[in-house]
Every structure is written in structure tokens, then in C-alpha cells.
């Protein structure tokens, strides 16, 4: 059964909101970083640069 948050509701809500915000920032940073790295790798691939293994840098066989 859900209960009322009582007189300290603002402290409880702020705690959960801060946790949600920080986790969202972490997820956003990781997703944007992944997009940025894969974009740069594709640009380098297009310029004719390949890794010594001969595979494309973005390949994950």
C-alpha cells in the first residue's frame, strides 16, 4: 500500500529526482560518446584508413 510522504516529502522527492537526473546524465553521456566515436571511425574509414588487421575499425565480428 502506497503511503503519504509526510512532512519531509520535499527531501524524499529531491533525493529520487537527483538520482534519476544523475543516472539520466550518465546514460546520455555514454550514448552520445558512442555516437561520436562511431561517427569519427566511419569518417576515418571513408578516408581510406584501415586497421592493421585489415578490418574496418567499426567492425565487430
Amino acid at each position: 500500500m502506497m503511503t503519504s510522504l509526510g512532512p519531509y516529502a520535499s527531501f524524499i522527492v529531491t533525493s529520487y529526482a537527483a538520482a534519476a537526473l544523475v543516472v539520466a546524465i550518465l546514460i546520455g553521456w555514454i550514448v552520445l560518446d558512442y555516437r561520436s566515436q562511431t561517427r569519427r571511425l566511419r569518417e576515418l574509414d571513408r578516408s581510406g584508413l584501415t586497421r592493421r588487421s585489415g578490418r574496418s575499425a567499426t567492425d565487430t565480428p
Partner: protein
Amino acid sequence: MTLIDLANPTRFLALTARALPWFAAATGILLAIGLYQSACAPDDYQQGATVKIMFIHVPNAWLSMFVWGVMSIASLGTLVWRHPLADVAAKAAAPIGAAFTFLALLTGSLWGRPMWGTYWEWDARLTSVLILFLMYLGLMALWRAVDDPSRAARAAAVLTLVGAINLPIIKFSVDWWNTLHQPASVMRMGGSSLDRSFLIPLLLMAIAFTLLFVTLHIAAMRNEILRRRVRSLQMMQASRIAFSSEMGAGSREGNASNEAGAA
């Protein structure tokens, strides 16, 4: 698949591409269940509804130490076994550990104000966790300060292992010193002193946050491997440009001497 197989970054990337969606889904489901259980938990007879802050404070506090522990094992991998992914793992974990430590400090303060009457007290537990947070920031600064990842890895590994001394200090600070922070109530000799109505949501949230860390860590490691590929390709590109400009200068000099000889 053995640990040696995982030492190959390409194999690691292939494995993470398959595993990440499953980890993300498991994290989401467990977080949803944990949050629901936390919302349904009864009020504590002393703390009232503020006990709900514990369901996010305690998992973040555990993870602040757990992540440094993971980084310490990775540092051993860098210094002793020279595992190719060890410093990638250590570097990727630092910002995530810093975020969890920040949340532990923030939610602890938000719980402390109504319960203790103060946001902050310079007692042993709070101060040692603040030091841990500053060490995370120091490590992240060190990684950024040194261009060559392998040189940065060795320095960061030494700093991480030295910093691991802080972990038992944090854990036992409430026993060694007279602190405002309460002693351990879950992981202690004689079992947990928490009632099941609080223990179950707390453990669910702890598992969910641990899975969240594993998911974010794998994704951040994947990004770090890609970043190093970008760096090595850019260095290759720069050396090609330098080589071709040297060759160009050499052939111009050769042409000039031929013309002089002909004249």
C-alpha cells in the same frame, strides 16, 4: 569463453554488442520492481517516510566502494598481468563511480537534514566518503592530463591501489570512531537487523543499481575501445601526411638538382 578470449578488444566488442541489450533490459525491470517495492514500503517508526531515501542512498554508498574495488582489481590487471582491457575497465569505471559517490553524499545529506538536523557533519564516515569522491575526481583528471593512454594507465593504477586503503577505513569508520553515522545494519555479524519490509526493497534496489553499473560500465568500456581506435587511426593518418610531405619535398629537391645539372 575464457578470460584470455576476452583480452581481445574485438571479441569483447562483439560480446558486448550481444550482451548489452539483455543487461539493459534486466536493469530496467529490476529498477521498476525495486522502485515499486520502495514506494510500497511502510514508514519507519522513528524515521517516518524518510526511510525511503535509504533505498537509493544505501545502494549508491555500496557502489561507491564496489566501483573502486573493481578499479583496484583492474589496476592489478594493468600492473601485474598487463591485460589489454584492464586499464580500459579502470578508466571507464571512474566517472560512473564518481556519480554514484556523489549521489551517496547528496542523498545522505538530504536524509541527514530532517533526521540529524544537519546536512553535513565532519564525522569519520562522511569525511572518508568525501575523500573517496575527491579521489575519483583526481583519477579522472589524471587520465585527462596524460595523452598516452598506456602511460596514464600505469600512473592511474598506482593511485587507485593507494586509494584502495580508504575502502576499509570507510567500511569500519563507524566501528573505529564515535560517529554520528549509524553502524552497519545489513552486512554485519549476526545478520541483518532490518525488518523484511525494508530489507527486500533495499536488496532489490542494490541489485538493480549493481546491474545498472555493469551495464553502464560495459557500454563505457566499448566507447573507450572505440576512442583508442580513433586515436591510433588519427596517428596513422598524421604519419602518412608527414611521410608524403617529406617525399614531396625530397622529389622537389631531386628535380631542382637535375635541372641545375642540365643547365
